[in-house]
């Protein structure tokens, strides 16, 4: 699918970090419409940071990011607001609003951007919760949920405004293998049925092989991309032995 479809995210010559510390340098890659794109790499190599640059939460030192045709890095407020409508984000630990139940969490977002009547909003929220398999947890508080449920609820919330792109930060980290497999299943299902483009940060091999169309691999020492491609190709014939080793670990 990737060959014909268009580029929905473009990252070009991006270098950035915190303070004077460079965390990532010379990053260039594209994400195509409709694919599941994976950013992988060890802990602390800058995956979350990469995500923050892409969604405009942090500003890189140099380079460009465009999402759905909108320049993110130096966007005007109006352009950025427009870009925000095209994507949703699931943060590493969900970031659900702790003082509200799941239904209110989703309705809050709808309230902000639409002027639907309350029961329309609740129906949409309920539909989103059903989509992630949390149909009967609408009135639960985030603190009463397990880690996996919280992450799914966060996905439901990030889908509230029908985004074209979903960014997921470590959706299966800290989950048991079964829940983690369910998460992969959910990603695949949403990708097939709703044609959402996914950018997923992860380091779980099984999940990479299950969901990924393409991936890039970051490395903490060289601070840049060490491999790009389909996981099976990288496993078979990456020119970097360390990358081959990583992909063959489980096999």
């Amino acid at each position, binding site marked *: 699918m990737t060959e014909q479809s268009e580029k929905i995210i473009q990252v070009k010559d991006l270098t950035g970090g915190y303070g004077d510390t460079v965390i990532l340098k010379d990053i260039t890659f594209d994400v195509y419409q409709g694919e599941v794109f994976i950013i992988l790499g060890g802990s602390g190599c800058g995956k979350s940071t990469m995500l*923050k640059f892409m969604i405009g*939460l942090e500003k890189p030192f140099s380079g460009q990011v465009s999402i759905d045709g909108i320049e993110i890095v130096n966007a005007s407020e109006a352009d950025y607001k427009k870009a925000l409508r095209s994507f949703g984000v699931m*943060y590493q630990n969900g970031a*659900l*609003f702790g003082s509200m139940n799941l239904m209110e969490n989703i309705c809050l977002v709808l309230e*902000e951007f639409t002027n639907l009547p309350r029961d329309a909003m609740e129906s949409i929220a309920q539909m989103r919760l059903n989509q992630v398999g949390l149909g009967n947890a609408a009135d639960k508080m985030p603190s009463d949920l397990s880690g996996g449920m919280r992450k799914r609820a966060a996905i439901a919330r990030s889908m509230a405004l029908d985004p074209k792109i979903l960014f997921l930060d470590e959706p299966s980290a800290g989950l048991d293998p079964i829940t983690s497999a369910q998460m992969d299943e959910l990603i695949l299902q949403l990708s097939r049925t709703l044609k959402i483009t996914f950018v997923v940060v992860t380091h779980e091999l099984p999940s990479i092989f299950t969901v990924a169309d393409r991936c890039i691999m970051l490395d903490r020492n060289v601070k840049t991309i060490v491999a790009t491609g389909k996981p099976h190709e990288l496993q078979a014939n990456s020119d970097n032995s360390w990358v081959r080793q990583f992909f063959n670990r489980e096999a």
Partner: protein
Amino acid sequence: MTDMDIQTTKEGALSITLPGRLDAACVAPYWSSTFRRLRQSKPSLLTLDASGLETVDGAGIAFLLSIQRWQTDARGRFEIVHLDPALRQLLQTNTLEGLVVRPPRKTSFRRVAEDTGRAGYSIVHDIKIQISFLGELGYKLISSMMLPQRIRWKDFFLLAEKAGADAINITALLGFLIGLILAFQSAVAMGQFGAEVYVADLIVLSMFKEMGPLITAFILASRSGSAYAAEIGTMKVNEELDALHTFGMDPVRFLVVPRVLALTATLPLLTLFNILAALFGAQAVMSLLGISPVVFWDRCRATADLVDLFGGLAKTLVFGYFIAAIGCLRGLYTGKGASAVGDSATRAVVTCIVMIVVVDGIFAVVYYYLGI
């Protein structure tokens, strides 16, 4: 078991015979003596003889690696002879690369000077942040007022209930006790002149103008100011603020504006309760001293002046604004890590109290010139 032995073999060369044991328990004295010797003689070739070496642990390996590193930095040669193959492998799998070299200790004068400078800089920086935040907040507050339907009134009422209604008990209790104490203290002094009845004047004046607003503001700073810092700080640590941001919701409009409005609205009302309770406290003492309630309240009414009362209440509007703003600011600037939220809450209370006193001082000067 052999002990360590250091010898100069020939010109510029040093040979160290390693002891049988190099572990955490015994490496310390070797460490200092070896490095002292290395610094003195700066050998061009350093040979470690490991023939007697039997036990090595992490500390021992770190010792050997440190020597190696020292020698490399000094551009001398380094070799270990008669090393057991297993130990050699252990040594090779460990490395000291990336070890932070501690900068030389500064003299205490330089340290003090540097620390003072740094502290001064961070205070200035902090004040800059506060001023720009208060400015931003003022702007957003006004633009929110222009579009009142955009204000989150549901949050406002909940917050006002929490900061106001839930604090009535403690505010009234404290007011009552302060009134009691003030009346008792001043009655003792005034009693010497037979002027107990004028205690009422003193209580009314001091409570209306200073004590009432200040005490209530302090209560609110420690109850709500710290709570706001902790709430918003927790949201920050939980990435909830990031989530708000990527949903296009401005945290200032969304979290700070309702809180500022809530405290600005509730602080004057709480102050009224506080003052009223203080008068009752004072009346209780007066009754014990044999002055009838009728006389006491009559004196109060004679002294009580609306200008004083509203002068005091006007201050509390400003106090309320600052307490909420500073609490939220500290929350928004919460750092990373487990103790960050606690630090923010503490700093919120401290900054609030300083700010309250400063603002109170400014009001005193302004009122003086206005003749209030």
